[in-house]
Every structure is written in structure tokens, then in C-alpha cells.
């Protein structure tokens, strides 16, 4: 892993009362508007950004966390970052050597503090009594100055920045360091400049052009007189040898006819980022810098979703520390699973954060989640609450059933509107998902089938066993072995329900028979369009209804599966909208509604 920020702690700064976040080499920060994504980046800049003006490091009243009784008055704003992954990088070690808080592997800490000067009564300190310092390690006296930021820095690219302007402006252009680093023989440059001058002269001495130049001059002198001396001449780019490189322009097509300004905003952004990466790599290999963390804010602006995914798959998976804030599921969906940070407002008004980097996933779990997040466009990460279900059938039916409940405005409950996503795990392995959601602090419920099975004449429920294994603390679990004892089932189910795990009696479709057998028959008939099969389906329904033995359910389930469980549920959903579902589904819906209510 490269030299990167591995933790940030923020106290009393803007949205943050006390935030403590582990970070990964690539970090993707998601969160709603105004939750403090930009402020988090700004906090990092206070410690690490060499381009941040000296004055900006002296904070103001509005930079203190709102929840304080008053700004200043002895309150201390503190931003501590930890850096790791630099063992073996001698230049980085040379810089961070006296800032260590951990060994093997080395861990360095830099802390920015905005605090009152030493005073007898700090509580009376006002703006003028405050100053900032940055120190390394744990000793406040071990101050570090701009020399550290010069080598190990953070470069922030604000949202909606003027990428086109930046590329065109010589001083800000990432093209500049690249061109300036080129070693071109000055004699060659001189020769090229001469021939350019010659060609320019030829062009300008073409009669019509020369005439036009005279006319313009005349017009100006008519307007303001010769005294104000505005001298206007026509020309091409400057042709002096030392100016030559500056006149190199980027074109956005192969024929060099369209300048960047004529391209789309999106292409300007892509070009800007490409140049930036190129110049950072060049500066690093020339030992001009040791490590630069790129912080890119909301890069999705102006970028086509496909391009977002391609671009950030590249960014987030290369050996370069990067922090991205985003609203875009397209960006989040290509982020490494352990790189996600979720910021949200706590009930007390300040923002809190959760990070996936410290969740202990197995390799298999990580791979599964990675693909899942990619394919589902990271929906699970953006949700306020999640209902984890087994498959597509629940995914279609639950939003429809939810409408039997009321939202706070007294309208039929719309899961989308309260930010609840129904996420199918396509199977029964809920564990990676619950780990992820717990790690991110996103409330969730799990709905799973009862799946009764009989072994050695002893009946038990695979669903209860599965649910029990999902409980985070072993102490709350009923022993799996005891679950063959029928008297334990209600208790086990209750315990699981309290933990948000809702286990049915049988299988979703069978559970629905009790109240919705007519709607199911109708659905089947619509999908098949033949009377004969409808008759068969009705028979299967009668056989399964009320039966305890899973053998009795299989004709029904086989028929539905033949049509596709998902497709069946999709059609059925239109018929049961707003109806009250079986109790375990209803409880799950009520619980998630409660959990997302803040």
C-alpha cells in the first residue's frame, strides 16, 4: 500500500463535534448534501495542503462546531491525521521520522490545532487570542512547518471547478510542469522560433491582413486619440524561444482544429485529470514531491455515467492515494469495498461517519460484495435503511405491501421516499451484507424464509439457524443445536425479530397463499394465458395451502419457478398493492420504518 492517510480525527470543526474515521489508500466519501463532505476535505487541507493560504489556516468564528456554546472562549479545534504505508519509502520516512505514534509498521500523526495562546483565563479568549499550529507525533512542542506539507501534501480539486479555465491558464495548467520539465536543447528552440517568426511574418505581410491591421489602428486612434497609446497589432502566438512552449495548446480532436473550449465540459474534466495524474507522476519520479493525496470533490459533474465508472475504476484502483467525495452511485459502485466512508447527521445535529476499512471481511465476502455493489450501482450504500431479502420476489412485493402502512404525512408509505432500499442477496448468505451495513451504520432488517427441514425425524428451520448465525454477539444466540426443539421456536423467532431478522414459517409464496391465493391464481393465469395450466395451478394451490410438509408445496413452487419467481412477483405486486402482508413481513416493514425515522 502506498503512503496514505489511514485515519482522520476532527474535533469541534464545522459539522464535526468529534469524528474519528479510519481511511483506506483510496477513500470514497458518500453522504447527503450538507453533511460535511467538503468540510472533511477542508479539514485535511488545513493539515496538508501547501496551496492553502497562510491566512486561511487561522480560522474564524463560523469554523467552530455549531453545537458549542460559543466559538473561541477556550474551545480547541483539532484535526489529526495519521499516515501509514511509508515504510520502505525513504523520502517519506525522512519527513515523518519524528512524527511517529506507531512502529512496525510505522504510523505517523500530524495534528492541526486552533487554540488560544497560553493565557490564565482561556475561557475569555477571543479571536485575537487564537492561533494555529501543526505538530507531529504526540508532543505539542514538536511543531512542524510548511516543510512537511511541501513533501507530503494534499491536493484538492473542488466540485464544479473550471477545468477548462485551469487547463487554458498557463499558471494553473497541469500541462505547465510537464512542458517545463522537458529537456529541450535551447539551440533547437531558437531555430524553431526563428522559422516560426519567419512564417508569421509572411502570413501577416499578406496584403489583406496588413490592411486590416492598419484599419484597426486607425479606428482606435480615432476613438481615443494617439495619447492613450493603445497599440494594436495582429500576430500569432509569441515566437520568442522562451515563450514557445507556453503557446502549445491542447486540442480535443485529431485534426487540431477544436480547442478545449469547444469541447464538452466533460472532456475538459477528463483531460484535466489526465494531465494532473501525468504531472503528479512526473514530479514524484523527479523527487520533487514525496506523496500527494488527491482529493476530488464530486467529480461526477458533467461526466456521462459510463465515463464516471471507467474513470474512477482507474483512479481508485491504482497505487495513488485518492479521496473522492461523491453523490454518484456510478463512482461509488466502482470503489473498492473497503474504501467507503459514509457521513451522516446524528440525531444530535453533528455529523458522524462510518468507514468500511475496518470491517473484517473474508476475501470471499469482499469479492462478493465488490461485484454486488458494482452491479447494483452501490444502491445499498446510498440507502437510509435497507431491507435485505433473498431474491427478486421480495424485491417486487415488499414496496407494494409497504403501502398498507402510513408515512408521517398520513399517506401510503413509499419505501423510496423514506430512503429504504430492498436489496436481494440472491441466495441466503446475508452475512457479508449485514457486516457491511453494520460497519457503515446503515439500519437494516433481514427477511428470510423459514425453510423447514427434517433430519432423522427431527424437524427444524434452516431459516432460524441462518438468522441465529447473523446475530452479532454470540451471547444473544440460542444454541443452534436446541433448535430441533419445537418449544424453542417462538422464542428464537422473537429474539431474531428484536434484532431485525424476520424468519417466515415456510417459503414466501406459500406464506402468501393464506390471504392472496386468488390474486396468485389470477397472476398465474395472466402470465400463462391458458385455462389448462390454470387448473393445474389451482390444484397445486389447494395441495399446498395449509400443508405442513414441504413435499406438498413443491408442485406449486415448481410451477411458479417455471415462469420465474421474479416475473411472477412483479405481476402479483400490482394486485396486492396496499394490502397487509403476512405478519413477519409486516413487522419487518414497521421496524425499518422506525429505524430510519430520525
Amino acid at each position, binding site marked *: 500500500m502506498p503512503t496514505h492517510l489511514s485515519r482522520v480525527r476532527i474535533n469541534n470543526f464545522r459539522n464535526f463535534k468529534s469524528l474519528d474515521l479510519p481511511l483506506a489508500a483510496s477513500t470514497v466519501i458518500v453522504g447527503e448534501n450538507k453533511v460535511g463532505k467538503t468540510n472533511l476535505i477542508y479539514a485535511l487541507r488545513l493539515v496538508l495542503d501547501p496551496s492553502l493560504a497562510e491566512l486561511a489556516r487561522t480560522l474564524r468564528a463560523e469554523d467552530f462546531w455549531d453545537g458549542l456554546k460559543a466559538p473561541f472562549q477556550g474551545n480547541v479545534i483539532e484535526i489529526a491525521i495519521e499516515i501509514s504505508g511509508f*515504510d520502505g519509502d*525513504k*523520502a517519506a*520516512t*525522512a*519527513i515523518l*521520522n*519524528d*512524527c*511517529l*505514534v*506507531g*512502529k*512496525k509498521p*510505522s504510523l505517523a500523526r500530524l495534528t492541526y490545532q486552533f487554540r488560544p*495562546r*497560553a493565557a490564565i483565563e482561556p475561557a475569555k479568549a477571543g479571536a485575537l487570542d487564537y*492561533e*494555529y*499550529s501543526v505538530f507531529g*507525533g*504526540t*508532543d505539542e*512542542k*514538536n*511543531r*512542524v512547518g510548511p*516543510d*512537511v506539507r*511541501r*513533501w507530503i501534501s494534499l491536493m484538492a480539486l473542488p466540485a464544479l471547478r473550471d477545468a477548462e479555465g485551469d487547463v487554458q491558464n498557463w499558471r494553473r495548467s497541469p500541462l505547465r510542469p510537464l512542458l517545463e520539465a522537458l529537456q529541450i536543447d535551447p539551440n533547437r528552440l531558437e531555430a524553431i522560433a526563428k522559422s516560426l517568426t519567419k512564417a508569421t511574418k509572411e502570413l501577416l505581410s499578406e496584403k489583406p491582413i496588413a490592411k486590416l491591421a492598419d484599419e484597426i489602428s486607425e479606428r482606435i486612434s480615432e476613438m481615443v486619440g494617439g495619447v492613450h497609446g493603445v497599440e494594436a497589432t495582429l500576430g500569432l502566438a509569441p515566437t520568442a524561444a522562451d515563450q514557445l512552449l507556453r503557446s502549445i495548446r491542447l486540442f480535443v480532436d485529431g485534426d487540431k482544429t477544436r480547442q478545449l473550449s469547444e469541447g464538452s465540459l466533460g472532456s475538459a474534466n477528463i483531460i484535466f485529470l489526465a494531465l494532473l495524474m501525468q504531472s503528479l507522476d512526473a514530479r514524484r519520479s523527479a*523527487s520533487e514531491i*514525496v506523496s500527494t493525496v488527491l482529493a476530488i470533490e464530486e467529480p461526477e459533474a458533467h461526466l456521462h455515467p459510463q465515463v464516471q465508472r471507467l474513470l474512477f475504476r482507474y483512479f481508485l484502483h491504482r497505487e495513488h492515494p485518492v479521496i473522492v467525495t461523491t453523490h454518484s452511485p456510478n463512482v461509488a459502485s466502482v470503489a473498492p469495498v473497503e474504501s467507503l466512508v459514509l457521513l451522516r447527521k446524528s440525531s444530535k445535529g453533528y455529523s458522524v461517519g462510518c468507514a468500511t476499512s475496518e470491517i473484517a471481511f473474508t476475501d470471499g465476502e469482499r469479492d462478493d460484495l465488490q461485484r454486488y455493489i458494482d452491479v447494483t450501482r452501490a444502491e445499498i450504500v446510498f440507502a437510509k435503511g435497507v431491507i435485505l431479502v433473498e431474491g427478486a420476489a421480495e424485491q417486487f412485493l415488499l414496496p407494494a405491501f409497504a403501502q398498507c402502512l402510513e408515512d408521517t404525512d398520513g399517506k401510503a408509505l413509499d419505501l423510496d421516499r423514506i430512503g429504504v432500499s430492498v436489496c436481494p442477496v440472491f441466495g441466503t448468505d446475508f452475512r457479508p451484507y449485514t457486516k457491511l451495513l453494520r460497519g457503515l451504520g446503515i439500519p437494516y432488517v433481514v427477511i428470510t424464509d423459514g425453510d423447514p427441514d427434517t433430519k432423522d425425524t427431527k424437524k427444524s428451520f434452516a431459516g432460524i439457524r441462518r438468522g441465529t448465525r447473523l446475530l452479532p454477539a454470540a451471547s444473544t444466540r440460542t444454541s443452534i443445536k436446541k433448535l430441533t426443539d419445537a418449544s424453542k421456536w417462538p422464542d428464537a423467532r422473537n429474539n431474531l425479530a428484536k434484532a431485525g431478522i424476520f424468519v417466515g414459517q415456510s417459503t414466501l409464496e406459500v406464506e402468501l397463499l393464506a390471504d392472496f391465493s386468488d390474486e396468485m391464481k389470477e397472476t398465474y393465469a395472466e402470465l400463462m394465458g391458458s385455462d389448462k395450466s390454470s387448473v393445474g395451478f389451482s390444484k397445486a394451490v389447494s395441495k399446498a395451502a395449509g400443508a405442513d410438509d414441504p413435499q406438498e408445496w413443491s408442485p406449486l413452487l415448481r410451477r411458479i419457478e417455471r415462469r420465474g419467481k421474479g416475473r411472477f412477483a412483479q405481476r402479483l405486486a400490482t394486485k396486492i398493492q396496499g394490502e397487509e402482508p403476512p405478519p413477519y413481513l409486516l413487522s419487518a416493514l414497521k421496524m425499518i420504518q422506525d429505524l430510519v425515522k430520525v
Partner: protein
Amino acid sequence: MRDLHREYERLNHEQKEAVRSSGNTVVLAGPGSGKTETLVIKIAHLLSSDIRAPRGLACLTYNNDTVKEFRNRLAGFGIHPGRRVLLGTVHSFCLNCILRPFGSLVSERFSGGIRVAAEKQAGSLLEQAMDQVGLNETSSWVATRLTRLRRRIDCREDISGFAETDIQVLERYRESLETNGLVDFEEMVSSALRFVREEDWIPPLLAARFPWLIIDEYQDLGGPLHSIVTTLLEKTDIRVFAVGDPDQTIYDFTGASPEYLRALSERDDFRSISLRFNYRSGRRLIAASQAALAPSEPRDYQPAPDRQDEGEVFFINANDALENHASAITEQVWPEIRARGIPPEEVAILYRQKGTLLTLIQKSLVEEDIPFHAERDSRYPRAPIVQWLQDCAGISFAGTDFDDVTSEDVMRYFHAIAFAAGTTEIEPDLSLRTRVYEAVFSEKSPDMPLSEWLGEIDSTLSLTQILSAAPELSDDRETLSGLIADCAKGKPLGTHSLQDFARDGRVKGRTVLTTLHSSKGRQFDAVVLPGLIEGILPRRPWNRDTRSYGEPPPPVLSEDRRLFYVGFTRARKVVFLIFGNSFTNDRGYAVTLGASRFVKEIHRRLRSS
């Protein structure tokens, strides 16, 4: 700014070799060989070629005076010590680059930071340990002996020659340091050695920050530093550039030994370069000094190729009384010095130690009205606070032309102590700057009495108050109050002026009277060496059985020889050797062992050439 290329071109062949040498190097630098210049150019060269920022180097020197000298010379090349270039003494290197950054990660003992024991505190802990063991001696004597013992233990060397009680006292003393969460001066280096040896993660961190270690006066830095160096060499790819002269080892009593530098120069992974030219002394003096050093091992030092004067050596026989040594200075030496037009401040009278001889010399100088500065009597304490006060004093009558001290230098130190004391803020604000500026830059007369000036600056800057605020400043506070007390009327520094203080007593028109040890690293036009009698230099041991003085044991003889050599080689032009046949020792007995063998050897050598 000085032009590095031009300065490099001015070096001689060997000096250039040393600068260009790309691997581990020992530079054997005799007296006057231009080693400091070579070192400074080496550093400038390394920083502009081999070592890419942000990596840097550490330059370790013998004491704070040499640190200052290096700081000034490096500034000439635009190099300022800081994060990338560490310039300091061995102790400050160990404390600031090893103990402070890593201490809390190594041991619980250092979790609250490194606390350095004030001298007084260390002294009383030592006395306690002595009481417990029942050792009844002057504690300062014991301290010196224990330093030597401690260094031997740390370097895993033989300690069989030490008394069991000494070992016990040392153990107790070290325990009490530990239980009090303290390190003393020596412990900084021992702990640093332990860190480097036992914590395998530390050497790579050091080598990453300092791919080069530049070490001056290697011969006098002692075993623990040598062990740190060899451990780093073994565990990392750090490169070492060590400069020194085994012949000038004079701190044997603290455990220094010429062997460490020799051992380094004999390693296979080291290249050894000898600087042959002596730019200080005339040909005759160079030849004579080599005779004094080791008649059997010629060093082949050469005078500068364009050197015209030969240099002179006077042999003055003071016969049988120490009084004659003193009167020889005023009656025989002084006319010669006047005749040569040598200014008094360019004359150094060097003696071995306090005692009858020194008293007699002082008396006769006073009687003959020869102005002198007796450094060891009235010497200003060596401490950062004093160095800073001296800079301030200099600025207050000579402005920043004084010794190239900048106002930022002055500000930096004051701010550092104020910050340590917690009485000031992170950055010096305007009012603090104004206060310092007013205190230091208000023009004073160079003749202002030192006591008056100290009183003034102490009250305008509240120095005593600031120094009392933090325990780690207590040594500085003691030093300051001691200095102020010594400046009172009738006290040793009572007559000193601002100028005396700023120039560390080396004031125009005053001859320097100091010890052979303190002459290290300095130079004078003329050097006067009185008391060259067998029994004084070299020392001769009293044998109780035979009731006679025996031959000095080889280590003692060799140490004294080096001490004499160092004194002799301070001279640019003239050396006065005052010898005698016998003397009366401090107990009143006449000791008649003849003239110092060193004088005889020189005499023989000069006569034969």
C-alpha cells in the same frame, strides 16, 4: 553567498578527495589541516548532489562552540540547519533525533516524553547512591570515573579495573534515574545506543532521514557514539564521514580513545584519507611537533607550499623553582613577543591544571602589568543561555555585524525558551518581537559593566521568571543566577564589561591564560608552555614501596604526550618551552626528575635538522 565551485577549487588534492569520496570515509586531519572548511564544503556538496531532499544529513560536532562555528560557515553557502540538516552535538543528536521521536514507542519509561535531569538533580541522585553504597569521596571525582565506567559497560568493554563499589554506585544511580523518569547527560547517549541496538525498526528510520552522518572530532566523542555508528553501519546503508585526529585525543578521562577512530579507518568498508598540509604553523614548528608526538612514527605533515616563515621554538630553562617559570614569562618571553609585534591577544599561556604554577604566573603577570584573561578562573559558564546572552551582548554594541548573528537567531532562542516555559504562544507575536528587539538592539557601550547589562536584560525580558517556569530549564536558570552572582562587585566577573562577555573574554590587548584542554581547536600566533618538568608533564607515579617516582605507564604517557602535542600545535609562529629540573609539589616536597622528556625530544629533533 559563497560560490561552492570556487571554494572547492581552492582545496588541496587530499581535501578534494575527501569532498568527492562517495562512500564511508575517515579523514585524518592533523593540526591546521583545514578540516572544518573541508567538512563544510563536503556537507554543501552532499546536499547538492548525493542527497536528494527531503532526505538530509546529520552533522555532529564536539561542543556548542563548534556548532556555532559550523552554523556560521554553512550559512555562507546558504545552508541553514533545520529538518533536513541536523547540526548539533552528539548529545543533542541523541536526544532530539533518537530519544524524543522514538522514546514513547520504545518504553513506558519514556511515555511522558524525555525528561532531562538538571545537573543539580543528577548530582544529588549520585550522592544518594554513594551514601547507600557507603562510598565516601568527592562526588565530582566519582562522577568522572563513573562516566568512564558507564561508557565501558555500554560499549561492552572490559571493566575489570573498576572497584566493585563504583559498579554498585553506578547501578543504584541509574536505577534512581529510571524510577524518577529521568535521563542525565550521559544517559542520552547510552539510551540512544540501546535504542539503535535493540530496536530493529529504528536504524532504518534514522538512515532514511540521514543517509549520511558527518562527524567531527571523532577521537574525542567516546565509545558509545562509536558503537552507535558501527551499529548503524551494520544494520543500514547509512554512510559515515568521520573526521578527526587520533593524535589529538585528550579526553581519555571520560573514556575517549584514539582507538575508535583508528578502528573506523581500518574497516574494509572505509576509505581513509590523510590531510597532509598544515596551514597553521611554520615548517620548524611542524617538524618539532611531530618529534614531540611520536619519535618513532613520523606523521609526514607538510607546511603550506607557499609558507615563507619557518617558525621559532624557544627553549627556556627555569632551573629549580616554579617561580622561575612565572618570571621567565614576563622577563624572557614578553620581550620576544614585543619584538615580533605579536598582539597580546594572540599569545596563549597554556598550563595543565590549577595549582601553584598558575597562581605564580597570574601574580607575576599582574605585577608586570601584562593584561591577561584567565579563562578558567573567570570563564563564563558553557550553556546555551550564556551563548545566547553573549550574542545579545555582541549585538547590543556591534549590531548584527557581530559574529554574523542575525536577529532571527536571537529571536529563535528566546522564543524557544519562552515556548518551553509555556509563557508564550506558538508563533512569536509582534509584542514579543518588539520586546526582544528593544532589549537587545538598543545600543550599548562596549564598556558597560556586565552586571548592569545582565540586570537590565533580565528584567526587560523577565528571563529568570521564564526560566523558572519549566523544569527542563532549571539548569539554565541556575546558570543565569550563577552568572549574575559572579558579576557582583568583588566577584570573579565583577570587573567584566559587555565586550569582555560578548567576545568570551578574548578581548584585544589581553593575553589568554588557559588550560591545555581548553586550547583544543584554537590557534594563536604564540604559545607559551610553562612547567615542562618530569612529574608535571608527563605525570610520574609515586611508588610507595621504593619511595620514588616510577616511569609513567604507557597509556598515561601517551595521553600526556597528546596533550602536550595539542598545546604545541596551537601556535602559528612561535612556541616558548619553559622547562626546569625540579619543582616543589603541592605538599611541599621537592621533586627532581629533570626536564620534560617532550622538551628533550624536540630539542634533539631540531638540533639534528
